[in-house]
Every structure is written in C-alpha cells, then in structure tokens.
C-alpha cells in the first residue's frame, strides 16, 4: 500500500471520529439543557476524541501531500544529459539553409 492510500484511509477515519465528537458534543449540550444545568465544562472524553482526530488528520494530510522537489538548478542538472540541454527551444535556429533548398525545389 502506498503512503497516499494509507493517508486517505487515516483521513477518513479522523473525519468520522471528528463527526462523532461533534454529535457527542451536541448530545451532551442537549442533555444539560434537559436536566437544567449550566454548561461549564465539556467531558474530557469528547475533548480528547476531537484533538486525537485532528492529530490523525494532520498525519494523513502530510502523507497525502506528495514529496517536495529540490529547487537548486545545480542538483537538477546532474540528472540531465548534454543532448537534452542542447535541444531546448532557446537553441532553435530558423535562419538556416532549408529555406533556399525548399524554394529551389519548386
């Protein structure tokens, strides 16, 4: 399994647990309203579930995002051959003998 697949699975797990903690918070608040208590502190289980799902999500996002690429031209040029460099558009020549040969053929 590739790292991106593992990341996606972890991301979905954390998303579902975050939704569950949302629903639990709502349930707890409506329970407090029914028994007519003042909401001062949330239960520690819900807070821990929420924070743990955020932690899992951060790991999954780092896994999903692909690797960074080194930006130094020096390191990039090591991998290229001289033929590849010479055929780049800057070296195209349009003012060559082909024009005369083509007109003499007509």
């Amino acid at each position: 399994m590739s790292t991106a697949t593992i990341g996606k699975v972890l991301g979905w797990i954390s998303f579902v647990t975050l939704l569950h903690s949302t629903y639990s918070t709502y349930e707890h608040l409506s329970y407090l309203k029914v028994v007519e208590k003042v909401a001062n502190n949330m239960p520690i289980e819900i807070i821990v579930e929420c924070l743990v799902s955020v932690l899992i999500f951060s790991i999954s996002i780092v896994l999903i995002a692909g690797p960074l690429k080194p930006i130094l031209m020096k390191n990039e040029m090591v991998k290229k051959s001289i033929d590849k460099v010479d055929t780049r558009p800057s070296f195209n020549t349009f003012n060559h003998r082909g024009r005369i040969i083509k007109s003499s053929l007509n």
Partner: protein
Amino acid sequence: MASQSPQNQASLYVPENVVHNTKTITFIRSSMSAINGSAAGILGLTGYSGFIFYALTALFTSFLIWSVKTNTHPGIYFRNGSDVWTEGVFGGLFSYVLFWTLLYGIVHGTYKTIMVHLHKWFMVNF
C-alpha cells in the same frame, strides 16, 4: 563572485520545482486550517482562545512540514529556509475562522437546525 548578480541568481533555481513546493505547502496549510477550525468550533472556543489555538496548531503544522516534508533541511526545497514557517499562515487564518464559526454555529448555536435533523434521523433509524 559571478553568482551574486541577479541574472545568475534567477537561473540558480528550477522554477517548476519552486512552484510545486509552494503548492504542496499551501495544500497542507489550508487543509490543516479547515480541520483545526472545525475542532475549535466543536470545542466551543470563543474570542482570543480561538486565535491562540490557531497559533498553536499553525506552529504544529509548520513543525510537521519542517520535520517530515523537508527532513529538517528546508534550504534544499525553499529559496529562503524560513519560508517553511511563514508560508500561507495568514491565508490559512481566514479558512480557519470560516470553519470555526460554521462548526460553532452548528454545535453551540441557538438554532441548531442541522443537528436537530441529524438527531431525529438517528432516533428513527437506530
């Protein structure tokens, strides 16, 4: 030294890779801002505590990028090594506030329309 002139400075880096790295960092930052904003809304943070939570989570995100993505050598992937700590932090703040207020309104708000429907659906189906 010849490499100090602006022309040579520009050809020192591969532009496609610079853009690719910036895009990757922006993706991580915006996703993290959204999910951290949701968490702040669920936890019911208000006022300064929400912004302190953002500062902490943004610092944690930067640490993750620095340690996992750049392997503690940000100089290889960014023109300026400290970009890894600052890139997109203020852009992420706006999506953080968006999700923070949205989830706070859904869970702790006065009307709670979405949650009432969800609760009814659960009561009927389970």
